[in-house]
């Protein structure tokens, strides 16, 4: 309905635009989830143990945040195709909420746990923080897939 009202939006005009933008969305997801996963696995202590936690986190953070930027840009583009319809889908609303929670958790909690100098005073909660972050990003993916499934 709104897509019809916006005939100039390329995503509503040409059929192939949607899958192409969605493919970029999947590439961005790989970048975002992949770097977040590695940071969390390092925080859990299950890989790259010879590299400092802060070094792994600092090295991957720019890739993670650029991935998030790609996701927001392509996601907004996909959303613009039919905003009214998406807003009515519960999975879509859940996903938006989960993204905000996951990104805030990453920015406020994980970033602090992986900050420079943290190696000197590792906290017992680090593993838990890593697991929560992994669960949150997985939930974002789950909700995202459900949007297409319903």
């Amino acid at each position, binding site marked *: 309905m709104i897509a019809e009202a916006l005939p100039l939006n390329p995503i509503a005009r040409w059929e192939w635009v949607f*899958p192409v933008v969605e*493919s970029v969305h999947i590439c961005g997801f*790989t970048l975002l989830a992949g*770097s977040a996963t590695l940071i969390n696995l390092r925080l859990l202590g299950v*890989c*790259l143990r010879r590299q400092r936690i802060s*070094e792994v986190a600092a090295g991957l953070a720019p890739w993670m945040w650029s991935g998030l930027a790609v996701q927001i840009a392509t996601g907004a583009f996909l959303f613009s195709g039919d905003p009214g319809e998406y807003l009515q889908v519960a999975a879509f609303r859940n996903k938006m909420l989960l993204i905000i929670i996951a990104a805030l958790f990453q920015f406020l909690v994980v970033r602090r746990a992986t900050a420079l100098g943290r190696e000197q005073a590792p906290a017992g909660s680090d593993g838990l923080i890593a697991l929560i972050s992994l669960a949150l990003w997985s939930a974002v993916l789950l909700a995202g897939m459900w949007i297409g499934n319903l």
Partner: protein
Amino acid sequence: MRLLQFCTWLSGTDFSVWLREAPYPYPVLLIIHLMTLALFGALAILLNLRVLGLVLPRAPITYVLQQSRPWKWTALALLTISGLLIAASDPLEYYGNRMFWISLGLLALAAVNAWYFATRTCRTITLWDTAERAPSAARWWAWSSLGLWIVLIFVGRAIAFF
């Protein structure tokens, strides 16, 4: 022709019908497929970026390789199993889908690409293992691998479009 007969038979089995029509198997398979794709793709991209000197430049390349190996194999196994089951859920549909065959071809190219890295590029790795940026032959390999993965994602997504 024999493959088409196999697909027709498979498509009529209870298992295939169940995969196709029960509410949960398909989305669950798709989720496993995408999550393991993300993990595998991310580790492949990480290695490429490391070879290019863009990520963790102080970690030896063989160390990054060795650390990511168990995760990569686990992801690859789950990726393959879920992919085969997704294909088994509607064999006739995939049989006639050009993008599906192209993506399988690209997958074979990715395997050749990985084999090339392991057997050719890595032959001299002791010389540049700890270098911030690998020599240009290895960097060319990294770019080709990155490009291949991106094309694979596009073609994989296009399977559902065509």
